[in-house]
């Protein structure tokens, strides 16, 4: 059909619009492509970390030193800024970095059992690192089955801290913290203040915010996991005793009143931190809390520390170990280079110098590094003693452990809020979680109970 006079402009306009749209789409596609790598001919190693801000600057300094010392390698650091969902998806999609410091102790077994990590045994055997270089409990933390999958710089331990000024105000000896569970409960009650002095009134200060059943269960002796039989060990007298002890104390203070008081606590990483602001006299937390106190507490803030009290039949001087760790994903394209980076980043030199604030952020996992002058002060000597304790416990090595912690906390809530009895709650957790663990082991072909 011939073009009619006057129609040509319409067709041209449509064609022009269509061409512009296609061009715009092409430009978008082009400019959304990959940014060029800046390795300059060197082998690029991708390294993911969870640190951000000043912490990342500190880590980057050591990465820069490594890059200068290895002219054929270039480590590209990327911060995932505490968003560990990215790690899970990267592992699930088998698109991981070459090396990362974003796998936590409680996740190690999950990744290792699924074959997502590279065992480090061969690398360690050919290096100067030995198990005897580390605290025994720390070395156990790195293992899943009979293989080592990770190393780290510093290991977090959990213990009690107390406000010495409040102790002094209430007539307690600030240099003599509680040693037994009974003393602890007694002191916690004495240090609690109510408005108007009436114990039925509104809370003004807590001696201790009872909770965190998982850590207390360690002190009470809960076994949690039997690697031989692959059975969860939660439904046991130790857990029941722990839950009943927690409940007796929360009932004493009134659970709802406790939770209401705790809901008004300021953020832990702020000057309104409840321990620093005097709202709680004693806390149970990790040794990294020292950096919060250094950052936000006034200069005259006095505090002390002591091991988690335990019942006579429990684990004395117990602690729980936790840390982010350096691992080589199984999908890493440069495993040898990744090991060189891990060896450097977990060395005594780097471990001792990775701290952002006035004092070290944690005690190095290497025993020799822990003997350095800056760790000779009483606080770090205490942390060293906790790491050396025969009751220092790494996370149990079964799959879905991260969810287990969350379910354990839910069990605690059920018991403390009178929804379920301790026996019922523990049995239900044991039953449900055992089924899930068995399913995971079956799905990854580990029905056979012999260790690989």
């Amino acid at each position, binding site marked *: 059909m011939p073009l009619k006079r006057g129609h040509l402009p319409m067709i041209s306009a449509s064609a022009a619009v269509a061409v512009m749209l296609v061009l715009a789409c092409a430009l978008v596609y082009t400019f959304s492509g990959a940014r060029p790598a800046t390795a300059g001919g060197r082998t690029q190693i991708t390294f993911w970390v969870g640190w951000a801000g000043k912490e990342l600057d500190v880590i980057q300094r050591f990465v820069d030193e490594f890059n200068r010392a290895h002219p054929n390698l270039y480590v590209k650091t990327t911060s995932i800024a505490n*968003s560990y969902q*990215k790690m899970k998806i990267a592992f699930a999609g088998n698109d991981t*970095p070459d090396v990362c410091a974003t796998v936590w102790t409680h996740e190690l077994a999950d990744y290792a059992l699924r074959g997502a990590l590279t065992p480090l045994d061969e690398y360690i055997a050919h290096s100067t690192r030995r198990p005897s270089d580390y605290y025994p409990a720390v070395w156990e933390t790195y293992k899943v089955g009979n293989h080592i999958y990770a190393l780290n710089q510093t290991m977090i331990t959990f213990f009690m801290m107390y406000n010495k000024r409040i102790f002094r105000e209430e007539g307690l000896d600030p240099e003599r913290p509680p040693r037994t569970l009974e003393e602890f409960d007694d002191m916690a009650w004495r240090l609690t203040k109510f408005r108007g002095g009436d114990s039925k009134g509104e809370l003004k200060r807590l001696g201790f915010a009872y909770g965190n059943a998982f850590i207390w269960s360690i002190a009470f002796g809960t076994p949690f996991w039997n690697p031989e039989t692959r059975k969860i060990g939660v439904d046991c007298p130790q857990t029941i005793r722990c839950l009943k002890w927690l409940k007796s104390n929360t009932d004493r203070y009134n659970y709802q009143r406790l939770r209401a008081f705790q809901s008004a606590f*300021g953020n832990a990483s702020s000057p309104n931190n409840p321990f620093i602001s005097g709202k709680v006299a004693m806390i149970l937390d990790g040794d990294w809390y020292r950096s919060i106190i250094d950052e936000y507490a006034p200069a005259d803030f006095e505090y002390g520390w002591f091991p988690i009290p335990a019942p006579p039949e429990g684990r004395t001087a117990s602690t729980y170990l936790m840390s982010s760790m350096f691992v080589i994903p199984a999908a890493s394209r440069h495993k040898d280079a990744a090991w060189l980076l891990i060896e450097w980043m977990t060395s005594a030199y780097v471990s001792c110098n990775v701290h952002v604030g006035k004092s070290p952020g944690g005690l190095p996992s290497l025993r020799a590094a822990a003997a350095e002058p800056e760790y000779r002060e009483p606080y770090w000597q205490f942390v060293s003693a906790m790491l050396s304790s025969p009751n220092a416990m790494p996370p149990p090595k079964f799959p879905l452990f991260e969810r287990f912690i969350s379910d354990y906390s839910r069990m605690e809530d059920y018991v403390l809020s009178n929804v379920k009895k301790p026996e019922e709650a523990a049995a239900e957790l044991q039953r449900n979680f055992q089924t899930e663990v068995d399913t995971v082991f079956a799905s990854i072909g580990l029905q056979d109970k012999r260790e690989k």
Partner: protein
Amino acid sequence: MTSPPAYKILRSTGGHALLVALSLIFALPFIWLVLSSLKPASQIFEFPPSWIPRPIQWSNYPEALAFIPLIRYTGNTLFLALSGTFGTVLSCSLVAYGLAVVRWRWANALFFVMLTTVMIPPQVTTIPVFLIFKQLGWVGTFRPLVIPAFFANAFFVFLLRQFFKTIPRDLLDAARIDGCSHFEVYWRIVLRLSRPALVVVIFFTFTAYWNDFMGPLIYLNEDSSYTLSLGLQQFLCQHNAKWELLMAASTLMILPVIILFFILQRSFVEGINLTGLKG
């Protein structure tokens, strides 16, 4: 001219007062955000809360700009938001036109199939989609975040299809009789009459891209390509958090969206002449 009766004045005043009070309640989180952005760290989590910063710490803003490369992250976010909005509007309007205006046998059936995809939670498809993009070699680039926008969004297709169906058929048929192709009817008539619906799509798409956290987190592996939402996360370090700087950066991040809303708000309230027919 007589003045309005007293009860009408009272009713109007009362109504406005109620609306202002409700607006303030809804605006409270934003007011708190802006006030917190001017506070020192010690006041942000004070209890009982203090509203007025003492002193007013304007330095939070330049410090926030220096803590992370905010300008670069803003540029990345703008590129994603503009590209994504362009792709969404283009693809959704084309698909909606095909389903609403063009008469073909399977249009309704396909529309219902497309609607069912709205019911699939994004968490279910995250890993399979990630695997697809990994196979394509797009992980680590902006492409997984931008290219899907050019393949239509079921919800916005639904929204635009319903709006296109309200355009008088006679108008479109008249244009076809006059020799317009489908593309010309779409471009010259349908799009021009659908401004309010398109403004809704533009605004919601832009806001979604601007605030998107999971997409950039999963697909971007270079610090230099991070977006504002990932940048804000970097204020929360493992051992401490810069809350006052985070509040300042959040205020800066939210401002473009507020400005965009006020610019586009007029299109929501302007009347249009739907029929375009005379006599």
